[in-house]
């Protein structure tokens, strides 16, 4: 039986991301902030892309980075707190995910680096001037209510 634990997923409404050359580029369409995550942080972000609990993230990060610090859970938790504070991930109802088959376990591990979110807010002013920048298939317009 699956245990009920906190499971996080990437915020689906306003976050877009891509991992290139081992670095995640994360864009917040709502705020105009954008972020980068390298190394361990990029691995954790990729796991979160599938939806994951703390145990799953720790397990998958530990499989591809070394040496794993004794307090790995604390460090990953701190990174998750950063992501939550930036509203890049959300907690969803779920259960502990099953371990995934991961071919990366057969390759040499990457060096461990403490997971950090590099954040940039230099474009926020563009959204302050133009508050609606992302318009999807549902469309904008808002019809003016009858007076």
């Amino acid at each position: 039986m699956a245990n009920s634990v906190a499971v996080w997923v990437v915020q689906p409404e306003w976050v877009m991301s891509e991992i290139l050359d081992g670095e995640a580029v994360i864009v917040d369409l709502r705020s105009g902030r954008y972020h980068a995550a390298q190394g361990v942080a990029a691995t954790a972000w990729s796991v979160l892309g599938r939806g994951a609990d703390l145990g799953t993230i720790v397990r998958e990060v530990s499989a591809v980075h070394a040496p794993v610090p004794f307090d790995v859970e604390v460090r990953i938790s701190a990174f998750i707190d950063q992501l939550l504070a930036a509203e890049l991930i959300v907690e969803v109802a779920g259960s502990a995910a099953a371990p995934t088959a991961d071919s990366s376990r057969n390759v040499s591990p990457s060096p461990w680096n403490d997971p950090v979110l590099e954040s940039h807010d230099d474009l926020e002013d563009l959204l302050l001037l133009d508050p609606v920048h992302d318009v999807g298939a549902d469309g904008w317009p808002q019809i003016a209510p009858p007076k």
Partner: protein
Amino acid sequence: MSRGPRFRALLDAADLAAQRLGVHVETFELAGRVICLESAGPGVLAAVAPAFAHLPRAAEGKPVELRIRLFDTASSGVSLPDLGLTQVTGSGAEGQVITPIISDGGQSFVLHGYEQAVSYLDHASGQAVLAVADAAAIPPWDRACPLRALLTWWFAPQGLLLAHGAAVGSEDGAVVLVGRGGSGKSTTSLACLAAGLGFLGDDYVLIDSEATRVWSIYGSAKLAPEHLARYPELLRPDEPLALDPPDAKAVGWPLRDRPTARVLSAPIRAFVVPGVVGGPICELIPQAASRALMALAPLTMFQTPGDSRLAFELAIAAVRTVPSLELRLGDDMTTAAFALAGILNEEP
């Protein structure tokens, strides 16, 4: 009011303005597509067309794929029709409101404030309207890079990204310079122009992500005082408009002043992210593709409203396939041009 009647109302307004003032036409090719500007009177066309003057005229008989109707209220006396939209008030300048629409193949974008403009594109028919309050009040930065919203909307579904960036090189290959304002894009592109490299754009270029190709859109450059001081022989800036704010950048026309530097299109050899680090010379060093994506995507996505997710995907596809380089800018900008020329001279 549904979207169809909105567009019809805008077309009717454009027709009425054209009846009153006559139609002035410019047709050019951009990225192999024929675009026709039909202006009611000369006013809006005179503000918009110079940015495209370096592009080739359309070949006789080649069908128009995008027809953009232009009119202004001040010269035509035709007011913007009531589009029945709620205005969204931003938290920026007083009275700054914006109402974009995207759905059913039609998009609209209203800018109140400095531009006082409405852009509307109907994808299905390849027709668009730009209505402005007063052509004479179109600000210099908009004259340098006009119709951005319409072109962004029209090109993106075709896989072409109207990207915030500069590009220099030759028809055999170009580098795309990406980064936020003040990072050194214009300084670098002008240094390359002065060193004899070809010029595709200073502020915006069109990127074909699948073909990994860059196209020139605008023949303009936005010029800070240091650019004018550094390259007085290179650029003749436009006279400022009476209503220009004192801190407005001047607009210059590198491809008007140096037509032989014109490069319309080229395969992309590298994405280059400049940054001022100091020191005597400029250095070019490899970096992760993610850094080019960070420099290209957010600014491109947030500067022009539209489908940000599609823009992000196009940016990813573009940077994934070519090298990404960091250009560390030092005092001697000729070394930047030299370093970039070295990249361009390598065998692809």
